[in-house]
């Protein structure tokens, strides 16, 4: 179970990296599309047939962020109940909580762009906590005492 916990935590951290890559891919592609003389407005953004290099990034970011990562977070919490090492549940809880913050900040940023700053910042908290959770699991796996977090 500790191994499953570790792998899942690594996947979540990797997913955050993928999210960052995808959204920059999409925004860069959108920038080039506009640079090439195209016009994008609300109707175009709502158009599932809108096509430019990087448009897939918006789709992946949305599906990953609002479906897959939350499910991975719930799975990590469930596994943490069986992963017998100190802090397993606590760190899974922190990861899930930062996923919740991340999704809501992402949604609210559509209408309040400053919340986007929190979305960007929280991505590091999410990736960091998932990474730390995986390191804790790794330490427990090899039998070494888990490192404690400095306050």
């Amino acid at each position, binding site marked *: 179970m500790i191994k499953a916990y570790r792998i899942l935590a690594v996947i979540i951290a990797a997913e955050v990296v993928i999210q960052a890559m995808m959204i920059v891919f999409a925004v860069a592609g959108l920038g080039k599309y506009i640079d090439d003389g195209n*016009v994008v*407005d*609300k*109707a175009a953004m709502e*158009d599932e047939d809108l096509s430019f290099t990087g448009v897939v990034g918006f789709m992946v970011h949305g599906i990953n962020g*609002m479906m897959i990562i*939350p499910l991975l977070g719930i799975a990590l919490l469930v596994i943490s*109940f069986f992963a*017998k090492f100190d802090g397993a549940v606590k760190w899974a809880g922190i990861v899930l909580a930062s996923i919740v913050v991340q999704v809501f900040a992402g*949604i609210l940023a559509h209408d309040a762009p400053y919340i986007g700053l929190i979305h960007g910042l929280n991505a590091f908290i999410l990736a960091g906590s998932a990474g730390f959770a995986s390191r804790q699991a790794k330490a427990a796996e090899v039998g070494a005492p888990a490192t404690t977090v400095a306050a």
Partner: protein
Amino acid sequence: MSQEAPQQNPRPRVATYLRTHLRTIVATAATLAVLVPLAVMWWGSRMPGSYSVMDMGYVDLGGGPDTMGLADRSGHDMSGMPGMVSVADLVADPGRPADVTVDLTASQGTVTLASGRTVEGYMFNGTSPGPLIEATEGDLVEVRVHNDDVEDGISVHWHGVDVPNAEDGVAGVTQDAIGAGEDHVYRFVVDDPGTYWYHSHQVSHTQVLRGLYGPLVVHPRGRPSAVDVMAVTHTYAGTRTLNGDEGVVTFGASPGAVARVRVVNTDNGAVQAWSSAPYRVLAVDGREVNEPTAVEGKRVSVPAGGRYDLEVTAPARIQIGSTALVVGDDDPGRAPQPRDELDMLSYGSPTALPFDASAPDRTFRYSIGRRPGFLDGKPGFWWSINGHLWPDIPMYVVDEGDVVVFEIENHSGEVHPMHLHGHHAVVLSRDGEEATGSPWWVDSLDVDDGETLRVAFVADNPGIWMDHCHNLKHAAQGLVAHLMYSNVTEPYRAGDDTGNTPE
């Protein structure tokens, strides 16, 4: 790890088992505490293959009486009860001959737009947009629809025309989808002159986006306008078009000619329209504005599904998003988009409403949010209505003749162009600010994030009417409720097994 207890004083085996496996038991209980509610939510969200929209959600009486005892109907068939009328029987006078007859044939494939661009999609009579249907106030319009080869089936909804319920063209609610090779006849009287449009209401989030729509204009009897110009805007694969054309579209008119430009937004998002020269907003959603004044330095925001009739004097250029319509022979050139938006709440002059909205018979709340959950078994963050996810949403029940107020509130993070079928509502206030201009009648209304709009109407058109977001993707994501008259029964069914998928 739990430690084995010394067995010096043997305890009952169950207690020992519990003690040694305490951690596993707690972990299992915690897992169940997380997963069981999720499983229950998932199971409960799954829709049967065939269902009646009347059985969805819960009855909301808006503070009015439960005339037909619907609150505890528990899905009972009420069609045999006295006083009840079926949706299918709510039709125009069947004995009256048609004044205007139109044939529409729907097909799918490669569409060649007026601009020459080709797109894969749908068309009426081989074109997209479909043909302009014109009628005169009071006419009975008969439209014979044939679905040539659209595999998913089609239907035709007369957006903004307050038709009898059976003619509303919503698959699974007011009719069965018209399958490939099948025919259907729509008959309705057009009493209100104005600008409207028609579109499929079967798999509508795909079929409308890809071209299955067209304009409809009802001219006033005895008052022909001098120059009448259509400006139907639609975005195909990311490219905005005007009457199927792209860029700057010219409509020839002699200098000084006064033109009525009918802007029809068939997209999923609002479009901005403005002119360098002063213009007037003559009508919104097929209802005249009272004493419209000249607008200068402001734009109008036409919601998805909405129509604005703008009056300009040639030569004039109306910018509609990235496209433009030049009325006249000389292009006055592009004007930059004004920062300020015309507020219809204070535009024009007030005049008496045909009913008293201050003491409504029913007041409903339509609060749009967004929350995690399952939509027909699919996990995600979905639109909610009054905190509930589709299909566990309010069924707004009215009696014929009721004065109805809707408080539409949005805290979902995105704008929603709300569209009520079969009725026009007047906007009373926005965030507590009362309307001071002309009565602002709408059938398609943008409700921005953080806004509360109060609208009112008289329940004068019996039936079961969709009240949904006209960002049609959002409708497919659960932002669909219904307004139901208490004495109406539903013979049609929606769901995967029925072939009816209105959204």
